[in-house]
């Protein structure tokens, strides 16, 4: 029963909301309550644009428990245009030759097996940019 987990993460999962530090201007995803750069604690929610480029990627064939219905699936690390890196599943990659540096954008998709808990968990994934 991980419903509370996904509920409390909803802003990050649906809106790619991280944090911005009022003291040093640093922007972070996932959200933090203490700034890892200047170590101050004055952070406010910050919503990222969802646009970025592919830093690296791979394909998961041997899915962990809870992801079997999606396998095989591509995952990547995305360098957001605001700076941070995000690790996520990739979407809409069929027939696409993935490459480091390719532009990608955030979409909302099913994150894991629905059968596991009896409800669908939605969240961010990234797909190759449709209209550059």
């Amino acid at each position, binding site marked *: 029963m991980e419903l509370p987990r996904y509920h409390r993460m909803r802003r990050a999962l649906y809106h790619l909301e991280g944090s911005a530090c009022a003291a040093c201007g640093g922007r972070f995803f996932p959200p933090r309550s203490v700034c890892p750069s200047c170590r101050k604690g004055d952070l406010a929610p910050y919503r990222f644009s969802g646009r970025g480029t592919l830093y690296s990627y791979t394909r998961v064939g041997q899915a962990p428990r809870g992801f079997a219905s999606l396998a095989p699936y591509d995952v990547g690390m995305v360098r957001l245009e605001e700076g*941070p890196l995000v690790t996520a599943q990739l979407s809409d990659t069929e027939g696409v030759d993935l490459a480091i540096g390719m532009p990608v954008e955030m979409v909302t998709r099913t994150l894991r097996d629905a059968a596991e808990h009896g409800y669908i968990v939605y*969240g961010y994934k990234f797909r190759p940019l449709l209209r550059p």
Partner: protein
Amino acid sequence: MRDVGIIGIGQTPVAEHWGRSIRDLAVEAVQAARQDAGVERVDAIYVGNMLSGELAGQENLATLVADAAGLLPVEALKVEAACASGGAALRAACLAVASGAHDYVLAVGVEKMTDLLTDGVTAALATAADADYEAGHGISFVALNAMLMRRYMHEHKARHEDFAPFSVNSHRNAARNPRAMYRHEITPEDFMASPIVSDPINILDSAGICDGAAALLVAPASEARRGRRPPVRIAASTCATDTVGLAERKDPLVWQSVADSARLAYAQAKMAPKDIDLFEVHDAFTIVSVLSLEACGFADRGSALKLAAEGRIAREGDIPICTLGGLKGRGHPVGASGAYQLVETVLQLRGEAGEAQVKGARVGMAQSVGGSGSVAITHILTV
């Protein structure tokens, strides 16, 4: 702080021990270490383990082991630092003896992985990553390392075959270790023909799932000198941390926790990389060996593959690594691996490594890494 020495070691063979439980394995290693030392007294036991709750359905593990080994009512605590848990157990034992809190302390690393099917083990291993922002998105531990490897190959224009020497070296050394799991040599051609797990990582880039336990008995160095075994001194014991989420680092290809723990260890031991006779690297994947050698000062950024290609990591080289097979060849029972690395370093320094002996080894470094470089524990041992 008192100087600390290792006076006894013990280990089970690394294998798929279908017939043996987590407590059976831990007790065998503990008894072997006590017998090796010829010492009855144990003041405390620290059990390094990552996944007993997930894989064996057992927490309260240290008490279970203390009881099963006939050590009640001694202090017993489990120490967890993901795949670095075995190294963490020795770190805890070292602190306890150095501080004067205890005199004779057992450090045990144990893991029992083969009771579950692969999807369960894959999910369990992913608990070393960020549960909300990595594992919760179906990012397996292999996938994180695969993305690192692809990025490394991109930045340094490396080919997959350039990583082969690491796996070839580990298997060559494992073939000379009677307790290793994969006691067969492989060729670079075998490496390239191996099936892909998560592109570019293939089976022979990766350490396998298995069971095992290893133990070390530590005591003040003054006692160690009076022991029945050649005394081995702990010249450095350090731990450093980095973000759990791989993506949250300035540069994921710089393993800062590894660099920090090595730098602190060199300072403690008053040594430099050139003084190290052998290095037990945490070769869970070939890319981990590469990033660790670079972070620890044995190779400049982007040049660890060259170090391997030139044969310098072999037993006869100037910086032998994974001398009894490493995680790849000996096997990687995750929470036990750090303890195996240390037991093997002691064997080398005592001159008891048999066919795998590094000639004239007097200084050995063992490094255990948890998560994707998020925690690193480094020990330097000397004779």
